[in-house]
C-alpha cells in the first residue's frame, strides 16, 4: 500500500467487522512523529487471537489463509523508527469490550509514505457502514480537522449517511477543513 490513508482504511475495517457502534480514528502530528489511534467498542479479541495477531499466517476469515492488515501496519511503523501496540478485551471477558490499535511513525523517515487521500478513506468507511458513529480527528501543528458522524446523523434523522449526496457533502466538508489547515 503506497498511501497511509489506505492503512487507515484497512485497519478501521477490522473495527467495522468487529461490530462496533462507535469508532474513533485519530491522527496526531508533530514535526517528527505521526501518532495513529483507532479505538472501537466492537467484540474485541480473545487471548488466542491477540497472541496470533502479528502472525501473518493467522486469520479469522475463511476465504484465505493469511491476514496481512496488522503485519503491514507494524512493518511500516517499525521501518520508520516507530512502534505498534494493541490492547483488546473480548466481549466474553469484559463489559468494556473493544480494541485499541496505536501506531507511531517517524514521518520524516525515508521509508514513510504520503498521507494520501484521507477524505476518500473516510467516505469509503461511511459508505460501507453508515450506521456506525465514526469520530475522526486529525491534528497537526497548523490546526485540526474533525468529523462526527453522530452529529451529522442528528441533523439527518432517517436519511442514511451512506447516500451519495450526503457522502459528497461530507467530502466537501472535510476538504474545506483541510484547505484551511494548509493555508495556516
Amino acid at each position, binding site marked *: *500500500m503506497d498511501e497511509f490513508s*489506505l492503512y487507515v*482504511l*484497512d485497519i478501521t*475495517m477490522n473495527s467495522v*467487522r468487529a461490530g462496533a457502534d462507535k469508532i474513533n480514528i485519530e491522527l496526531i502530528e508533530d514535526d517528527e512523529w505521526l501518532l495513529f489511534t483507532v479505538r472501537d467498542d466492537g467484540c474485541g479479541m480473545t487471548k488466542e487471537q491477540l497472541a496470533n495477531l502479528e502472525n501473518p499466517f493467522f486469520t479469522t*476469515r475463511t*476465504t*484465505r489463509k493469511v*491476514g*496481512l*492488515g496488522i503485519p*503491514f501496519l507494524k512493518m511500516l511503523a517499525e521501518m520508520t523508527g516507530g512502534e505498534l501496540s494493541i490492547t483488546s478485551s473480548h466481549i466474553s471477558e469484559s463489559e468494556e469490550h473493544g480494541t485499541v490499535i496505536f501506531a507511531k511513525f517517524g514521518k520524516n523517515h525515508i521509508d514513510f509514505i504520503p498521507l494520501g*487521500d484521507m477524505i*476518500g*478513506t473516510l*467516505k*469509503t468507511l461511511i*459508505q*460501507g457502514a453508515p450506521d456506525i458513529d465514526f469520530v475522526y480527528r486529525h491534528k497537526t501543528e497548523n490546526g485540526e480537522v474533525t468529523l462526527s458522524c453522530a*452529529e*451529522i446523523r442528528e*441533523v*439527518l*434523522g*432517517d*436519511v*442514511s449517511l451512506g*447516500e*451519495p*449526496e*450526503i*457522502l*459528497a*457533502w461530507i467530502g*466537501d*466538508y472535510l476538504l*474545506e477543513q483541510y484547505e484551511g489547515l494548509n493555508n495556516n
Partner: protein
Amino acid sequence: MKSLEELKAIKAQMQNKVVLRKASGETRIVVGMATCGIAAGARPVLNAFVEGVAEAGLGENVIVTQTGCIGICQYEPVVEVYTKDEEKVTYVKMTAERAKEVIEKHIKGGKPIAEYTIGALKK
C-alpha cells in the same frame, strides 16, 4: 463555510427519494474491500461506482455495497454485479475508468463487458 444547516436543506430534498429506493434495489454492485482489495486499488473503484450511479440517476434501482475478501486476491480489485435476471457477473482488476464503463454499458445498457470479467482472464 460548510455548515450543518446546509445538510438540513439536502435532507429535505432527499427524503422522498429515499423511500422509493428502499422499495426497489434490483441491481447490486459489490466491491471487495479487504486488505487485498484495498492494496490493489479498490477505494477509487468503489467511489467511482457510488458517484457514477448517483450521476446517472440510477440510485433508485442500483445499490453499491462493500464486502470482504472473496478469495481471489490476485485478481483484485474485484467487483460483482448481481442483477434480477442475469447470472452474477464478476469483474476483475478493476479501475475507476472501468467502473464508469461498466455503469454505462452493463448497468445502463444491460450488456456485461466480457473482456473485464474473470472468464476472460482465465482463457
